[in-house]
Structure formats: C-alpha cells, structure tokens
C-alpha cells in the first residue's frame, strides 16, 4: 500500500468514509424525528460512532464520545444534547449546531465531511434539531429484528447482487433500511460489498456470507459462488463427510482431486495424528501390505499409540496456557501436562475432561487439573478462556460494550462470568501453588457498566438460582455437556476439522457466531451430532475424519480446483509445525535434540511446556507458541526469512548434517549399494521410493568428486560424506519434506 496515499487519505477521513447522499427512508412526514429510530442509524452509517472515531475507547474524539455503533442511544443522546455546554445542538438555528457543522465539515472536522448537506441524512438531522431533539417516546415502536433479502443466493464469479434490508418494529411496522445498514463479507477475498448493499463476487468459488448490521441487530445473507465445472468420477463415499463434501462440490461445480496414493496417505496421517513421520519400517510394511483396509488399520494403530497422546497434549496444553513463568512452575506444569496426556491416552470423554478442568478443586498434587486456575486467575479471564476454548465464542468485546457482531451483550458477559465468582484459593505448603475450592456463597458479579449485580446465566439461557453450597461451575459444566448444547460439540469438531484440513468449517475456528456461518453447515451439524452420539469420544472424531476420502484426497490440484480454498476439493498442504519439523529433521539426519533437564532423546512433540523454546532457536523461529493465548493462532505458521535462513545455514541444523554417527556418516561407511541407501533416505523423508530420475540426480550428486579450497580433489570417502550431507540438506529444504501434503 502506498504510504503516501494512505497519509493523504487519512487526514481526510476517519473510519468509514461514507458520504450519505442517497435517499434514505425518512421518518413519516408527520411524525417527529426520533433520536433512537432515525438519528442514531444515520450517525452509525456515517461512521461517527466507529471504534476509531467518536466511539474510541476512553474519550472518543476531542471530548465528544459516542457508544460503539450506537448500542447505547440513551448515552449518545445525553452527550449530544446536554454536554459540550449545549453548543452541539442549537434548535434556534439548527444548521449552526456544532454537530451539523462538523458532520458537514463546514467547520474543520478531523473526520472530514460525513454528511453531505444535500443528503437526506443531513436534512433529517437538521429537522430533528429544529423539532427540539426528541429522544423518542416510550410508546414509539421498538426495533425488534432485521431481515435481509435474499437470504440465500447463488452468484456466479464476477457478478453482483443488490441486498435489501428490512427493519421490523414492535408495532409490526417495517421500514426499508437498506441505505442505512452496514455490510461486511466474512471472506473479503471472495466478495466485496459497498455502502449501498451491493454484493460483488470475485473469482474464488465457494460459500461466503455477508453480515448485515443495523442498530444492534444482525442478519446474514449467504452466497454460494459456483465454479460450474462438470463434476464426475467422484471417489466412492466412505462416510457422511464424503456425502456432504461431495454434494457441495457438485453443487458448486468444483471437481475434487483423486484419492492420494498410499505413501502420501501414510505420511499425512502419521503427521496429523501422531505428529511424526512414519518410521522406515512402518512405511515398508504399509506399502507392502495387500490388505484392502490397511488405511483404516494404520489409523487405528496411530490412535492407540502414545504418540497420539503426546501430539494432542502438545496442542491442548498450549491453549490451556501451561506456561513456565517461574522456575518453580515446573511441578505444576509437568503434572498438568501429564494429566492432559493421560486423559487423551485413556480417551477420556471430552465432556468429562472439560468438566474436570472447569470445576477442578484440590491441589496440584491430588488434582493436576487445578493448574489451569493458577494460570488464569480472574473470573472474567476464566470465563473468556472457557468461552473461546470450549464454546468457540469470543466474549471479550462484550466486557465493555455490546458485541459488535453478536447477540451477546454486557449482561451476557457478566452473567457468564458469575459462574466463576465462587472459586476460592488458599496457599499450600508448595510455594506458588494454591488449593482451589468452592467458596460457599451466592455467585454473582457486578456489571461494570450498570453497577448492578448479575447472577449466573449460561449463554442464551435464563438466570439460575444456585444455592450457596453448590459449586456454580458444576452447573455450567452441566449446561455445556448437555447433548443439546449448541456450542461444545460444534466447537470441538470444528477445531479438530481444522487440525486435519488446515481450515475450519468456520474460520477462525473459535469464532462461532450467527454472523460467521460455516462454509458447509450440514457437515458441521453432522460432525457435531456424530461426536455427541459417540459420547464425546475424541478418537471417534479423528477416526471419522481420517477415514473419509475427503481427507485422503490428493494435494495435487486438477485443472479446475486449484482456486478452491474452502471446499476441500483437494488437500491443502501445510508446513509442518515447529516441534514436528524439528523431530522430522532429527529423524532424517539421525540426530536428536537436547532439552535441558529432560532425558536425552526427548522429542520436541512431547515437551511439557513452553520453557524449552528459550534454548531452542529452531522452535522459536518456526513459531512454537509461548502458551500465552487461548487461541491456536499464537502458533506462527507463516513463513519468514528467519526460517529460510535457519534451515539453510543455522548452526544447529548444520551440526545435525555433519554429526558423528549421523546418517551422512553411516551412509558413507555403509557397504550397501548407493541406490539402496538413496531408497532408504527417500522412504524416511517422503515415505516413498525415489523415481529413476531422482536416483540418477541424487546418486550423481553424492558421488561427484568434490575439491578443496585449492581445487584439489578430496579423498573419495570425505567427498562422499559431503555428498550425503549435501543431499540431506537438499531433501530437508524441499517443499515435499517441509510440508504435510
């Protein structure tokens, strides 16, 4: 982006640059203009109350503060009419009101012109002031909902569709608010919207949703953007996932890639379930097996391995903030990591695991799950984490204002927080470790805005009266693990779907809301149903996903589906995550990593907490998280210059290539014929045999006579050893190695 342009621009506008010139829906000519129903929407549409302008946290702009997106019309009214020594509005000469002068940029306004004097919005504002600035009467109709039409649409690529938004009021009246509503697509690479509600599709096929907002109400219009290619030769369906994915692909005309070969499958599924490459032996046995259900067998064997528990414990402990801040945290962190790992190994039902964690009492010694309460201390933090982790709902915004894209209000925020207000703690003989217990009393918290006490209520449910002896957290756990709970199962299957497919059915995976619909809603429902029907069996989710042909599709795109990024028509390759990549490099080179106080040979995937990142530049540069966020996005999967430099030239990687007794040395010394050695390397790195051409290129490179700095040929053994080092280097740096594909 041009910095210069941006600067020039930003001096002129503030937030949504919108000069509302079109004819909006005016108040009925006879009835007075109401602040709530008429003026507040105009201010919202003009961007006055956006987060970067007058709704900026704290002070607004220049002492003039409005509530975010007009969620608090009463306060806004006070600020406009009564503050600023009354100069903001001037009924005797409405157009001389500061509010009007600023909005039209007649006097200099940091936000530039927001309302064109020719616009209907401007006229309404002036009329409102002239009429004496009515807030609106209690008897005025209240906005109850909004509707968008069309609700569902099918739009070709590069096409457009005008939306229409209707507001419904308590007196059953309606109003067309299309020009006043706000529009936002959930994937801007797929569709764009303009201020007037025109949706334009771009060139990527799939499903996109446009969120429509008007005065605190939201609605969604979903567009299906077909590619329109002929879809035939679908792989046979293995289960409901294939049924629903393939049905969607047919509907939008995106042909899937074929099912991948055995080598690709084994490598992929081992990396995804067990966080490691298959061993040479596993690969050989798998490729040689004639069994028709060998893929399902491989899945079972991986699921029952301890590597599965290691890998998923690594995933969960990071977002459960198993973080070493003090050296003394080691006891709690090791215990907590073991608790998670053992729970996974024993395949403890997910609802049970969540309940044990959420309602943990006791000490770190008798119940390691309490460690989470050590990391997350404040009730509102505990609530925010639980909501995002287990419900896929991001409540943070609702702490200070009504959630801008959600139905959750501050009341919801504090009533969910109230479940955590009776968590008691007492110091124990272990320094820094508290005893966690239920503190007798009525659970309630204070709504920071209204200053009123709030009792516990789960999302979308009425307030609970909980006797002082009952631990409110158990009531929350009851609600969460009810099979009809709309959040818990969906959130988990979406998180796991992303684990295996790179992209959630909802993105981001922990931002489930009405205004962010899944790309394949039927599939998300079916996965959640399957999970609850299996009594929250985590392995069953993994099983059904990895057994599907959808999961087993090749990463190689065909002539049509390369543009697809969300319909799962082919496998989306991902760079191996930091720990897995380090272990894989070790496996290929015959090296191991040394992690301080842990036994030699400990793999990166089984590290109990984040403290080992400090001593491992490899883990740090490839983005192993510091366990400080509940979001998996803390893990950096983006590539960087530092990563490329590290793989090419870092001391630790170089040492692995050249180490004594490493693979380069042992292959140099080995009596095996060179092609067999190359075969082994390829099977280890890629789980496949080399092609004839690769054998030729790699063999020539290994055997090439190398020279020293003076140009003299090196001793053949030394030259060959360098040859293997170079080959290992080259293999590690291929995309085929770095990526799970």
């Amino acid at each position, binding site marked *: *982006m041009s910095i210069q*342009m941006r600067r020039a621009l*930003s001096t002129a506008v503030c937030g949504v640059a919108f000069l509302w010139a079109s004819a909006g829906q005016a108040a009925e000519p006879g009835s007075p203009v109401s602040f709530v129903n008429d003026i507040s929407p105009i201010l919202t549409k003009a961007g006055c109350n956006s987060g970067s302008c007058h709704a900026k946290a704290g002070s607004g702009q220049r002492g003039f503060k409005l509530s975010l997106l007009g969620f608090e019309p009463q306060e806004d009214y006070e600020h406009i009419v009564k503050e600023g020594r009354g100069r903001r509005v001037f009924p005797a000469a409405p157009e001389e009101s500061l509010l009007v002068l600023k909005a039209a940029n007649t006097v200099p306004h940091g936000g530039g012109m927001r309302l064109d004097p020719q616009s209907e919005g401007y006229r309404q504002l002036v009329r409102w002031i002239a009429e004496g600035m009515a807030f609106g009467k209690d008897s005025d109709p209240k906005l109850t909902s909004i509707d968008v039409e069309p609700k569902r649409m099918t739009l070709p690529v590069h096409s457009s569709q005008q939306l229409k938004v209707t507001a419904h009021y308590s007196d059953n009246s309606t109003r067309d608010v299309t020009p006043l509503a706000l529009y936002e697509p959930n994937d801007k690479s797929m569709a764009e919207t303009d201020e007037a509600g025109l949706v334009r599709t771009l060139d990527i096929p799939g499903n996109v949703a446009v969120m429509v907002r008007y005065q605190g109400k939201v609605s969604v219009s979903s567009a299906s953007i077909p590619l329109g290619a002929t879809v035939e030769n679908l792989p046979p369906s293995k289960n409901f996932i294939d049924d629903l994915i393939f049905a969607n692909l047919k509907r939008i005309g995106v042909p899937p890639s074929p099912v991948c070969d055995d080598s690709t499958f084994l490598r992929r599924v081992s990396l995804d379930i067990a966080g490691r490459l298959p061993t040479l032996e596993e690969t050989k046995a798998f490729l040689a097996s004639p069994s028709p259900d060998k893929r399902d067998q491989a899945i079972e064997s991986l699921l029952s391995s301890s590597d599965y528990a290691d890998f998923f414990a690594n995933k969960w402990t990071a977002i459960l903030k198993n973080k070493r801040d003090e050296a003394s945290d080691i006891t709690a962190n090791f215990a907590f990591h073991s608790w998670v790992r053992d729970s996974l190994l024993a395949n403890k039902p997910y609802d049970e695991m969540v309940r044990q964690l959420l309602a943990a009492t006791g000490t770190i010694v008798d119940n390691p799950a309490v460690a989470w309460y050590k990391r997350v201390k404040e009730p509102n933090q505990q609530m925010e984490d639980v909501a995002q982790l287990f419900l896929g709902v991001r409540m943070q915004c609702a702490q200070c204002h009504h959630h801008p894209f959600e139905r959750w209000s501050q009341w919801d925020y504090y009533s969910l927080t109230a479940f955590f207000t009776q968590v008691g703690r007492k110091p124990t003989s272990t320094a820094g470790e508290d005893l966690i217990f239920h503190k007798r009393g009525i659970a309630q918290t204070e709504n920071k805005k209204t200053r009123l006490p709030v009792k516990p209520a789960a999302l979308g449910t009425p307030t609970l009266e909980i006797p002082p002896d009952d631990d409110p957290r158990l009531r929350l756990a009851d609600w969460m693990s009810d099979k009809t709970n709309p959040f818990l199962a969906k959130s988990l299957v979406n998180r796991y779907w992303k684990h295996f497919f790179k992209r959630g059915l909802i993105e981001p995976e922990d*931002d489930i809301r009405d205004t962010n619909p899944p790309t394949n809603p039927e599939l998300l429902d079916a996965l959640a149903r399957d999970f609850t029907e299996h009594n929250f069996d985590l392995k069953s989710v993994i099983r059904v996903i990895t057994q599907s042909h959808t999961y087993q599709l090749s990463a190689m795109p065909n002539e049509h589906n390369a543009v697809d990024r969300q319909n799962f028509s082919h496998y989306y390759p991902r760079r191996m995550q930091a720990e897995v990549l380090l272990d894989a490099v070790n496996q290929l080179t015959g090296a191991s990593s040394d992690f301080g106080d842990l036994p030699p040979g400990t793999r990166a995937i089984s590290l109990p907490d984040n403290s080992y990142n400090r001593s491992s530049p490899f883990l740090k540069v490839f983005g192993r998280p510091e366990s400080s966020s509940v979001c998996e996005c803390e893990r950096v999967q983006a590539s960087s210059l530092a990563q490329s430099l590290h793989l*090419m030239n870092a001391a630790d990687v170089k040492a692995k290539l050249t180490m004594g007794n490493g693979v380069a040395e042992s292959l140099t010394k080995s009596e095996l014929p060179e092609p067999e050695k190359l075969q082994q390397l390829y099977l280890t790195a890629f789980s496949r045999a080399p092609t004839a051409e*690769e054998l030729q290129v790699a063999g020539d490179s290994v055997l090439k006579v190398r020279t020293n*700095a003076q140009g003299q040929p090196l001793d053949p053994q030394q030259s060959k050893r360098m040859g293997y080092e*170079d080959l290992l280097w080259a293999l590690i740096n291929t*995309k085929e190695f770095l990526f799970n594909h």
Partner: protein
Amino acid sequence: MSRRGFMQIGLTGMASLSWPGLLRLRAENALKPNSEKTAIIMVWLNGGLSHVDSYDPKPDIGSEYRGPFKTIETNVPGTRLTELMPMQARIADKFTILRSMYQKAGGHPAGSMQLLSGDPDERDKPKPKLPDWMSVAHYLRSKDGKRTNPLPNYIGVNPPLEYNGPAYLGESYAPFSVNDDPSRPNFEVPNVGLADVSESRRLSDRVALRKSLDKMERAFDKEGELGALDDFEAQAVTLLTNPQTRDAFDLSKEDAVTRDRYGRNRWGQQLLLARRLVESGVEIVTSALNGPLCSRTNNWDDHSVNCHIFDALRFRMGYYDQAVSALIEDIYARGLDKRVLVVVTGEFGRSPKIEFGRSTGGGDASGPTGTLQPGRDHWPRAFSNIWAGGGIQTGGVIGSTDKRGEDVTERPCGPDDFLATIYHHLGIDASKVTINDFNGRPTAIVNNGKPIAELMGKAV
C-alpha cells in the same frame, strides 16, 4: 490505493486480510522505489538516562537534587546541556530535545512496554501483550509490496528485546539481530554473505540440487501464502551468497576517520553500523547502548546499589556523547536527514532527588560492597529524549519540567504521542490503523496519541 482498499485494512485489521486480498491490494499500489521510503534509527538506553544530569539540567536546585555536573552552552542560544555532552552541545542545532516526556510505569518491563508498545498497563509483566512499534512498522511495511532489497527490513544492532517484541504479530516480525560487537576486529554477522568462497559455492550447489529434486511445486498455491516461502528462500540465498549484502555489514568499508569519529568502541561502531544499514535500504533499525561501557551493571539503571551514579555517568557519557553526536552529524552530512529519523531514549528518567545506598558489589563506577554511594531511582513522571533528522525542524526544545525536573509543566507528551510521532514519520497514520489480536479484536496501534507537532517533519 483506493479509499476502499484502505478502509478494508483500517477496519478489519491487517492481520485478518487474506493473502489474495493482500495481493490485490498490492497490485493496486504501484511500487515505490526503496529510496523514497522513510527509515528510522532508535537508540535505546535501557534502564533510563538521568534527564537532570543530561538534557534537562537543573543547576539552581538544592544539593539533595543537584548532581556535580556544570552546564555548558550549546550552539543554540539559550539551550544548555550538562558538561557530560560537549560534542552534542556543538551540534545542538541538529536535534530537538523533548523535555516533557512522561509515562506511567515505574518498572523496567512495564515502562518499556508503555513506551515501545503503548501498553497502558502500569504493572510489570514478563512478556509484552502488544507488539512494539518496530514489529508493527515492519509488519505494515511488509504489506507495502514486494521488497527487492535482500536485506531484512528490520535489523537490531544489539536490539532491545527483553521487554518488547512482536506479540500477536508473530516471530516473523521480530528483528534480524546482530549481536556481535561490531568494534571487534573479527566481527561476524551470522547468515550474511558467507565469507568462505568454498562454503558459498557449496551452498549454491545445494540450492541447485534442491531445485532439481523438489517435485511438489504443483501442489502449492503460488498465489497463496506458500508463494511467500519462495520469496523468503530466494531472499535467504541472496543474503547468504551475495557479496553486496555482506558489504552492508562490513565496517571496514568505512574510512578510518569516520570510524574514529563514532568512537572505536562497541557503542560507536553499533551506531555506525546502524547508519550504514539505513543507507543500504534497511528501514527500521534499533540499537541498545548497554554492556560494559555502561559501568558495572551493564545498563543505565543507576541506583546506588548498582553504582555511583555520577561516576557511572562520567564513565560512560564520553562514549555516548561521541557516538550519538557522530550519528546525528553523519545523518546530515550524508543527506539522510529527510529520510531517516533518529530518536534516542530510555524507558524513563531518573529521580531528581539523589538517594544514597550501599553498593552491592564493586566494579566500574561502583565502590566495594557496602560503600555508601549516590544513585537515582526510576522516574517515569518526567524525562527527556532527543530527535534528529526526519525532516523535522531541529535546534529546539519542546516542553519543560518543574524546577526540580520532577513533573512536566508544559507540553506533556506520553507514550502514545511518542509512538504516533514515530509512526507519522513512517507514513503510518496511527489513529486509523488497527491490527487484530489473538482474539480477533481490532486493536489500535496507538490508543489516543497525536504526533508531536514540532517533531512532524516534511517527510519525503
């Protein structure tokens, strides 16, 4: 770029922009040649420089406050500095002193986080919650378009890293760090221009072999994020093998007079390297002046338990004055003064009232354990920093403090103003840009600050 393009970024947060979206934005923006892009060098005095002993002297105050240093005239009539900085006094017309800086955290971690990331939290915490301005600038600049210069765009020459970092932007936006002492004769920068020709040739052979063996190309979405990997790999190979990249770090290419002018010591050569890097097209450079040149505790944290503050200042200020004055002079002499902004600051100042305590250990500028010696404690309520280049009007003094230097009396500037000023120089409107945090919440890069008008240059 179009207004729409800007709005999408401003409103939804850069971090949430999809890659194809970014590519589209990129395509909409003609690339500017690198030479036109502004750059910045921040010199960091971790621990906190005593403002009353340097840029905001209070010679007429009582002895429990007054240090031993006399004040001297500068080449700007009316502006006086302490005698510790004669070289800067001679070029006081080339920088502006901001005497009314303040922030609200008394600890090193929170103080650093306030100043570098704009986090208003007054409590110390081990890791920053918000990205520092350097990472933010690095991130935003990386969205400007493909960089043709193989040098990393954010380099830390002994960077401040303890209490700052990229937070939710991710490690990709951390600095390329040069940690070796550039004044050492065999100074080496890892991963830059392999010195050994045979090593360089071997790397080229390896890269060629890798290319002939990599068969997965077709599976990768070249338009997508994975395309970025190819760019980074190419940049890494250039950095490693292109002798020109080595040149940017090679101080032996500087003439002896210049090297002497900065001072043949760690600080001097750090700042010389910083200047050499911005001249080579690096846009964000930081350099912390710390280590043994500071005195016993290797930083500017001059409590009486750590050192005898006045001995410590005598010990270090010569190196400091020489290096900083050389950098400022050089920026102007080489015509970099419009493009490159130089800012020198610590996280806070030091208490105007002198405290006495017992040394916890002997060493440079500290008496043996138990010696009673003077020190000054942390002081965030008022402190000074200096600004040069960046097309700003220099030679001025902004703001003032009370007679003791304890509180700002005129033109208070907080961390947000500090950050907005830096962003302004970099062409970033801090009042508009938000970046999504881990929770997807659009987070302003500056909460409420305004660029300090006197420090807003007419950037190129």
